């Protein structure tokens, strides 16, 4: 055990150490040393060092959290949560950290490992790459690189929403110190740690739909006109597990919930995001139109095909449909056939 560690604990023990099951109190040369499994009172620096060494797991744990871990409240809490500090005793945690302790954060998989006495290193990758060997993954060590890394999905499409469920795969930050890990998470999922921490403390400042809508100005001022049912459809379109990693905590207002399932995400969504507001602008304008009746004849299979097509777009399934899979109603040739047969001359006019 390093002299630095022993010096730190020796000094701290003068005021009493009580942390994660380790209790150390020193009065002059007399030290009382206690863990859940053991306690001892020794005299003199040499005896202190001996007993500290016998309880290296506890001393190592104390040293990390008091000399190496981030001091900022939300960052501290996040690092504690990552390794399950509140529910896992040091003796078990110490062993687990040797092999790495893993948590999910959105589509991220975060692994914390013990890499030496009082040291932790963190790894981040896409959860889909969790079982991949490191070799084929592109390795990064600069948190700033994450900004560009998460800008496009695996198909090269721009991701305007950081918490959308299309985080690209194929990369890893495999050896980060705590601060670098926190910075990287911040670039992948901005503000999620801060809001998660507020929620844990019971003071998440949720801004509900009606308040958000009323605040809008300019081209977004009209979204207040969107009726409640349509706000629910919008939330179901944009704010469910399949589309976004955030857990929607906002509703119509404090007293009026949306009848839409909430996701199970680790971190909360405290107000409608800019993407939802922009989508709301479009659907608000569309919802102003009155309905009309259109008459066209379809075979039952054609009706089913239209439903399949809508479903395929809504579930972002088009890329998965094989070129010659004519049984799939959203197959390109099937749709082109339908267009030629039914829509070449346009759909019939509607009437009120």
């Amino acid at each position, binding site marked *: 055990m390093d002299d630095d560690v022993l010096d730190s604990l020796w000094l701290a023990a003068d005021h009493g150490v009580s942390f994660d099951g380790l209790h150390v109190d020193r009065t002059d040369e007399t030290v009382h040393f206690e863990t859940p499994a053991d306690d001892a009172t020794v005299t003199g620096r040499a005896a202190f060092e001996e007993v500290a060494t016998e309880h290296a797991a506890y001393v190592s744990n104390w040293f990390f959290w008091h000399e190496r871990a981030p001091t900022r409240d939300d960052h501290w809490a996040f690092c504690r949560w990552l390794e399950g500090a509140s529910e896992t005793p040091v003796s078990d945690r110490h062993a687990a950290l040797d092999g790495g302790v893993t948590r999910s954060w959105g589509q991220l998989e975060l692994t914390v490992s013990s890499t030496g006495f009082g040291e932790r290193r963190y790894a981040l990758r896409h959860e889909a790459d969790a079982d991949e060997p490191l070799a084929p993954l592109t390795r990064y060590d600069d948190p700033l690189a994450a900004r560009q890394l998460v800008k*496009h999905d695996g198909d090269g499409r721009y991701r305007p929403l950081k918490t959308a469920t299309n985080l690209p795969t194929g990369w890893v930050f495999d050896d980060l110190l705590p601060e670098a890990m926190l910075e990287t998470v911040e670039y992948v999922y*901005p503000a999620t740690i801060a809001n998660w921490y507020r929620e844990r403390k019971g003071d998440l400042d949720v801004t509900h739909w009606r308040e958000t809508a009323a605040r809008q100005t300019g081209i977004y001022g009209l979204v207040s006109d969107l009726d409640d049912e349509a706000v629910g459809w919008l939330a179901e379109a944009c704010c469910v597990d399949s589309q976004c990693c955030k857990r929607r905590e906002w509703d119509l207002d404090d007293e009026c919930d949306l009848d839409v399932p909430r996701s199970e995400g680790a971190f909360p969504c405290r107000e409608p995001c*800019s993407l939802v507001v922009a989508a709301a602008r479009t659907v608000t304008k569309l919802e102003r139109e009155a309905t009309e009746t259109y008459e066209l004849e379809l075979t039952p299979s054609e009706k089913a095909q239209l439903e399949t097509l809508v479903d395929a777009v809504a579930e972002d399934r088009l890329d998965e449909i094989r070129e010659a899979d004519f049984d799939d109603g959203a197959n390109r040739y099937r749709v082109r056939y339908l267009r030629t047969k039914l829509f070449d001359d346009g759909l019939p006019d509607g009437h009120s």
Partner: protein
Amino acid sequence: MQALVIAAHGSHLNAASSTPAFAHADTIREVGAFDEVRECFWKEEPSFREVLRTLESEEVFVVPLFVSEGYFTEQVIPRELRLSGFDPEKWDSDGTSADHVTLTASDVEKTVHYCGPIGTHDAMTDVVVQRAESVTGDPTVGDGFGLAVVGHGTERNENSAKAVHYHADRIADRGRFDEVRALFMDESPEVDDVTDHFDSDDVVVVPLFIADGYHTEEDIPEDVGLTDDYRTGYDVPTTVDDTRIWYSGAVGTEDLLADVVLERASDAGASVQAEIEQVRERTRTVALATGD
């Protein structure tokens, strides 16, 4: 601790919209001017709404990466940052002179120095000139050249044009270029007729825009006559009506813009004079080395 927050528009559609904010933030990070540097966006994340809570610093300098005073600097950003008691009157601006105002944000315990936009700072004039140097590859460009500063312009916000005129006038006063004009996309005098406004054989066209995107990469090149179809690209310079047009793309992509961000923070009380000098030195070196 002190933080710098660069507040930019961002985009739901254009991945490159955030590029200048990232680039200038990185320049400022490299010189270590602040304990924390963070980009935030109207259309991307972190949002204006949530950026302050991601910071540890108790004192924050917010610099809008916008070209003019108006809707975003006076309404959207202060509202979304929850700056208690903000009123554009506190800036006492004539349309180009908003400096800074110190407030608190209602959702965090922080002091926020909310600055005027980078586009109206005096130092922006130097960036426009450096943009002309970069695009011509000539650090002494001016003699025999005309310079057009191009703005969006909008009848809805008179300040939009004021910022363009402000820098055009300041550059004209220096007497470096033979001719200097302020031209616009959506109001007169229009950039479509750029060659009608100059006698010089060479004209540098610098759009006073933050990021390259639809306006600077598609509209203006086609309006000016550099190309019939932006997708086919164009040369720099391109001869239009017997005038060589040196089109620079958005001024906001010029490395020296990081200097303007720091100047704004400095005016608001940040101790960054030494870092300003470093940024000027670095970005000047980059411009001369690349000549683009």
